């Protein structure tokens, strides 16, 4: 296993007068191909930590290393370039551009890394189809259900085959059926080798991870390694019943 992402002594403080310490000294390492969930109550620092590790925000102290490069002191331009190629992000509220179609939302990050428009348009088709959006490519975000919008957002995050996929409450704004679908897709991308780091309240999402890190008051309060799923004993054969 090789290390993909490492946070060392991460601290994030907000405010000038009365300082709020959102993250208070976190060390965290992600191996390539791992699926790690960050759990913890609201205000525990999950989202802040996620943003620091994904290069979306800068730490007050500490270091972030992504794929062998230290990213927390990079210029904004250099960091943006790294993010586009190496990090895909899924948010709770999808954050799709409302004036673009589903396909155009996914094409955009491909154009930003210099792919040709025609090439990008072709690449989007299997990506959206594979996420269950066949026939919905030209729909505007507002014409799509929450679950479909999140699948478009997932396609957008995966558009440049990022080394790291991060998600901030990716099922937090979905009903249980859509949440289960999106979780199933996240699990599939993981099985295909994708490295995943998700902040979540949803125990079901956390249970899909290889490792669950719990935060409390900006610090790591627990770490659990989950095993492969054990077989479930059913009390009776379902088909004997109906």
């Amino acid at each position, binding site marked *: 296993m090789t290390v993909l992402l490492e946070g060392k002594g991460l601290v994030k403080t907000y405010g000038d007068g009365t300082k709020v310490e959102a993250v208070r000294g976190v060390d965290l390492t992600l191996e390539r191909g791992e699926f790690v969930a960050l759990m913890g*109550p609201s205000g525990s620092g999950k989202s802040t930590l996620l943003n620091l590790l994904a290069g979306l925000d800068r730490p007050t102290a500490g270091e972030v290393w992504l794929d062998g490069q230290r990213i927390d002191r990079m210029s904004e331009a250099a960091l943006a370039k790294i993010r586009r190629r190496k990090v895909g992000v899924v948010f709770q509220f999808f954050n799709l551009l409302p004036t673009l179609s589903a396909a155009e939302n996914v094409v955009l990050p491909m154009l930003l890394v210099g792919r040709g428009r025609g090439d990008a348009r072709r690449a989007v088709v299997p990506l959206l189809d594979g996420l269950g959006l066949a026939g919905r490519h030209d729909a505007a975000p507002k014409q799509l259900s929450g679950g479909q919008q999140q699948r478009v957002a997932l396609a957008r995050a995966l558009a440049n085959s990022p080394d790291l996929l991060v998600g901030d409450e990716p099922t937090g704004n979905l009903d249980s059926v859509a949440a289960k679908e999106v979780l199933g897709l996240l699990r599939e991308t993981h099985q295909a080798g994708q490295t995943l780091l998700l902040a979540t309240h949803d*125990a*079901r999402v*956390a*249970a*899909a991870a290889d490792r*669950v890190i*719990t935060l409390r008051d900006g610090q790591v309060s*627990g770490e*659990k390694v*989950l*095993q492969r*799923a*054990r*077989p*479930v*004993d*059913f*009390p*009776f*054969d*379902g*088909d*004997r*019943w*109906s």
Partner: protein
Amino acid sequence: MAMLAGEREYGYGIKQAFEAKFGDLLPVMNAGQIYSTLARLERDGLVVGEVVPGDNRGKRLYQLTDAGRQELAGWIETPVPGARLKDEFFMKFAVATSVGLADPMTLIERQRLEYLQSLRDLDAAPDGKGPAAQLLVDGAILHLKADLEWLDLIESRLTQWERVG
């Protein structure tokens, strides 16, 4: 008695039907338990057993009496209690922490891992087990989510109490 709601059955047939339906849910009943239960039910007039004419093995075929059907209907119709105040984890937790046998946070963290692992197991369970199994899985997942929330609550209360002193 529910095993007799359909057709008449031998004691051995009841045992087989019971195991097929509830094999993993309830402890296995041995033949002795089945026959002593049938004898008690017969004494109470809830079932009646008779030797089939021509059967020289002396096996008795049992069926429900009218009183038995009423008793069964009454059991089925009575809702099961809703409050779940008996919780094995909490019993251990309360006992162990009150006498200082274990660190409360360690117990909570271990239990949380077990619940998360169980959730993972259930999510990976094959869908093809049939509709009843799927309902059971969905119910078990909802209970596990509630149990995990309860652990969060216990943990935050303990933390508050510690702060208050």
